[in-house]
């Protein structure tokens, strides 16, 4: 008997106990793998336990760690941003050109980041408001931003940034081998984790990824949210570009070419669903570090970069395949007693957006 007077019926908040909700997750699995790989390497890879390892690992993965943060949110909404590495290149070049023109690093960096915001805004506008597929748009801007970067400096490099800044980029926190740039990362990571997991905006991000129509019907500002995310992605990528430039003390049009693939690979590896709607930041961070540790260990073993690429590729494919493989297996199991999901279903197309 339904009535609007409060009733006796009450509900438990959670189906499963806390430990289950924490431990039996994709994220925990990735973290476990990460830990395992680290310990294995310490045990079996010569010099991996050396003091420099951590420093170099973090220095190398810092840009990917940074970009992975906004990329996670973008992919959770079911979109994708392939242009991030080109934004890195563009901001790097802008930093260099402005520095050559005599501007101070902070000013140049600020302009570079603003440029990143503009790049993100362009992506976001075309995707959210014009309604174009983000895959196509960002393939286009990938070429565009990289082209502008290359156009500005050709294949020459701007170097000779003053040491105060280049040293800062590689400086360590006191005696710990941890680079200073990690402070920036930790701050951003906390901010993004808060945004994604503990705000109404973040809930909207997930809703859009799971069912953007329903999100629209419940008053989630779908367009604006997507725009904001692409802008964030552009800004952080530009920031990463500044770091990248200062770390190598050289601004080149081809800086960080192909990094978008590493970022996306890491994000998906970290348990974010390419279909959108699923993913946690700590998983992503673990994913980035996992790739970083593996390549670092392999380099120490003298394994060439190509093998590393194969492994990253396999990891990527494996990580996205596992859910469907499991589903298929259970499907087969149930198929025998004549149950199972819709038999023939269309392969999912580009990205995850609907027309």
């Amino acid at each position: 008997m339904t009535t609007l007077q409060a009733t006796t019926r009450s509900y438990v908040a959670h189906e499963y106990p806390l430990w289950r909700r924490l431990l039996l997750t994709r994220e925990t699995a990735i973290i476990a793998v990460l830990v395992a790989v680290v310990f294995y390497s310490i045990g079996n890879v010569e010099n991996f336990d050396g003091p420099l390892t951590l420093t170099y690992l973090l220095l190398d993965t810092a840009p990917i760690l940074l970009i992975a943060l906004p990329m996670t949110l973008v992919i959770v909404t079911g979109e994708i941003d392939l242009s991030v590495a080109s934004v890195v290149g563009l901001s790097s070049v802008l930093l260099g050109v402005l520095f050559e023109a005599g501007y101070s690093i902070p000013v140049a960096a600020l302009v570079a980041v603003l440029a990143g915001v503009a790049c993100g805004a362009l992506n976001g506008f075309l995707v959210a408001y014009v309604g174009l597929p983000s895959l196509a748009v960002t393939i286009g801007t990938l070429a565009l931003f990289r082209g502008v970067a290359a156009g500005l400096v050709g294949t020459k490099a701007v170097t000779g940034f003053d040491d105060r800044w280049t040293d800062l980029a590689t400086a360590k926190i006191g005696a710990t081998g941890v680079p200073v740039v990690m402070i920036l990362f930790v701050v951003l990571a906390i901010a993004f984790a808060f945004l994604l997991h503990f705000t109404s905006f973040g809930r909207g991000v997930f809703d859009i990824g799971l069912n953007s129509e329903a999100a629209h019907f419940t008053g989630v500002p779908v367009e604006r949210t997507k725009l904001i995310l692409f802008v964030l992605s552009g800004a952080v990528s530009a920031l990463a570009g500044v770091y990248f430039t200062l770390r190598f003390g050289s601004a080149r049009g081809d800086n960080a070419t192909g990094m978008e693939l590493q970022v996306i690979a890491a994000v998906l590896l970290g348990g974010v669903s390419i279909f959108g709607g699923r993913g946690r930041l700590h998983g992503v961070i673990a994913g980035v570090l996992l790739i970083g540790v593996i390549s670092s260990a392999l380099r120490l073993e003298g394994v060439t970069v190509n093998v590393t690429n194969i492994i990253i590729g396999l990891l990527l494919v494996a990580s996205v395949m596992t859910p469907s493989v499991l589903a298929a297996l259970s499907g087969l199991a149930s198929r025998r007693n004549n149950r199972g999901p819709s038999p023939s279903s269309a392969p999912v197309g580009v990205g995850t957006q609907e027309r």
Partner: protein
Amino acid sequence: GGDSESADGGDGGSSSEAVSITMLPKNLGNPYFDTSTKGAKAAATDLGDDLEEVGPETASPDAQVQYINTAAQQGVGALIVSANDPTAICDALNEARDAGTKVVTFDSDTDPECRDLFINQATAEGIAKVQLELIAEQIGGSGEIAILSASANATNQNAWIKMMESELESNPDYADIELVDTVYGDDDDQKSFDETAALLQSHPDLKGIISPTTVGISAAARYLSDSDKKGKVMLTGLGTPNQMREYVKDGTVTAFALWNPEDLGALATYAADALATGEINGDPGDKFQAGDLGEYTVEEDNSVLLGDPFVFDESNIDDFDF
């Protein structure tokens, strides 16, 4: 007779422990560096050192830095580098040196303060001079010429190009020769090939091309060899005999220059060993034995000069195999 030299190379107390050397060329899959590594490996065996070649797929400094870092982590005795960017890899090199690794640059130098020794394949003057002489002779002393270089921020390439430009300005013999364009093939075979095509197109009256990079000259030669410009547009520069042989034979190219990359790699390795074993510390005036290459002396700005470039042509090309 390698033995006697290796004995010499060995004195200075180095014969005791084997030095671990990492060889880091601009990128892998580049025949020029394959050859220099070949020489380095030979020298290493001669010295009883163990030498490992690592390197990025593409000639970019950030990729190179990771390998320098790794070398530092491994604490190798010496690191032999051909720099993709004079500054970008400096910090990494210095960190490696702080970790006790000796750094020898070859082929393409870094800023002097980031390395212990630079093995100079030939002076910029020498290279510029020989290439200009060759092209001038081939085009009969007058006409438009262009340069097909590697990447626009390859230190050595730019140094040579600058030299050639000033030489063209100053030297009266080259008064009628006009340098109309400089294009970049990024040491990428396909790009160099297409750049050559574009070059001939935008400059119909082109008489000659100088390509001071082995990838570039062979790509350019291949394009010319079956174009109607074959024999009309002269091509010279720096190339390896094996790559150029057929084009010299079919008349696309009359003569080109190069030092012997094999010797270059070898010399770099002997130097690295000498540094690592403390036989020298890279100061001007230091002398060291480089196997059967003989004795070398460290010059000003801590560099060692391999020698004058060598000109290959129809008559002598078959005597070489690299």
